[in-house]
């Protein structure tokens, strides 16, 4: 049975504030379940929960390295392995955000076109 902390860590995957969001995207892209993700990171399940609840490392240098070192040092995982997983997860998150942003723009453009059909600069031929 999972603990409240486990459940919070799972829900944190939907919130890019948490490291869970990057780890979740990474795990999905590699088809890793929780146990496999923990094995990849070289930690046990309770440590994976704590990792997930950490703040997402700031993507820009030198903060990224500092944040990864702080997390890896605190929870005893290999910084390079954690950094690789988080970087990949962050890239996937950005892609996802970009896609939804682009979809949003397309929808907005379509809505605008539907609202103001007469304003089409091209006009009727």
């Amino acid at each position: 049975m999972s603990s409240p902390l486990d459940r919070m860590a799972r829900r944190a995957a939907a919130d890019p504030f948490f490291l869970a969001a990057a780890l979740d995207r990474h795990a999905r892209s590699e088809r890793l379940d929780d146990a496999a993700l923990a094995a990849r990171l070289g930690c046990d399940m309770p440590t994976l929960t704590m990792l997930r609840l950490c703040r997402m490392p700031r993507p820009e240098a030198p903060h990224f390295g500092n944040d990864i070192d702080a997390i890896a040092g605190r929870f005893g995982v290999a910084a390079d392995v954690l950094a690789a997983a988080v970087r990949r997860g962050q890239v996937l998150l950005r892609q996802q955000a970009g896609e939804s942003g682009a979809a949003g723009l397309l929808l907005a453009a379509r809505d605008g076109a539907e609202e103001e059909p007469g304003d089409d600069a091209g006009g009727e031929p």
Partner: protein
Amino acid sequence: MSDAPPPHPDALRLLRCLLDGNPTAPADLAAAYLEPLAAGLSTANPRVDPQLCEEAAEEALCALYRNPHSYRPEEGLTLEAFLRMSARGDLRNLLHKENKHQRGRRPWKVVEHSADGGNYLRRDDDPSLPLQIAEAARAAAVPDAVRAGLTETDLRVLELMLAKERSTAVYARAMELPPLPPEEERREVKRVKDRLQKRLDRARSSHEQSP
């Protein structure tokens, strides 16, 4: 009845880590506070779904993560008490949402033809009943002359004012303000507090003038 988690010996150290931007601070704070906070809410509200209590505890923690300056130790409130108060507000909001959702799902005919008619929301099937009772008791502390015509949000703000709450963030959450720039949030909170304060002052002065 106390739904307070026990004071955490590392409270200030954990808060300092959060303020310093240490990325492990949210995990450490959650490990220290989530379970006792959720358990405290469940104990104080035995008829509320424990899952909702847990969610409210999570939301209180997340709000602190995003705005660590919303807690000011110099105001005399312990971190535990601050989180507890914040979680109670979150639970109230979750229950209101839940209630609306349930109302939306219930066919109108069932409501109209049920034995308890329009009052069913006050009955045993309302998950927010325990909180409503507690709120009613607190609201009773607000003079009738002031309470008349106030919205539910106004009453929440007024209760906080009477409890001498000072945190803008706590008021903003009670008012269910959308995310705003700090200055705008402060202005909006101040506007509502000033309006309610005038109402309180008027009620007090007319009470003093009455024979």
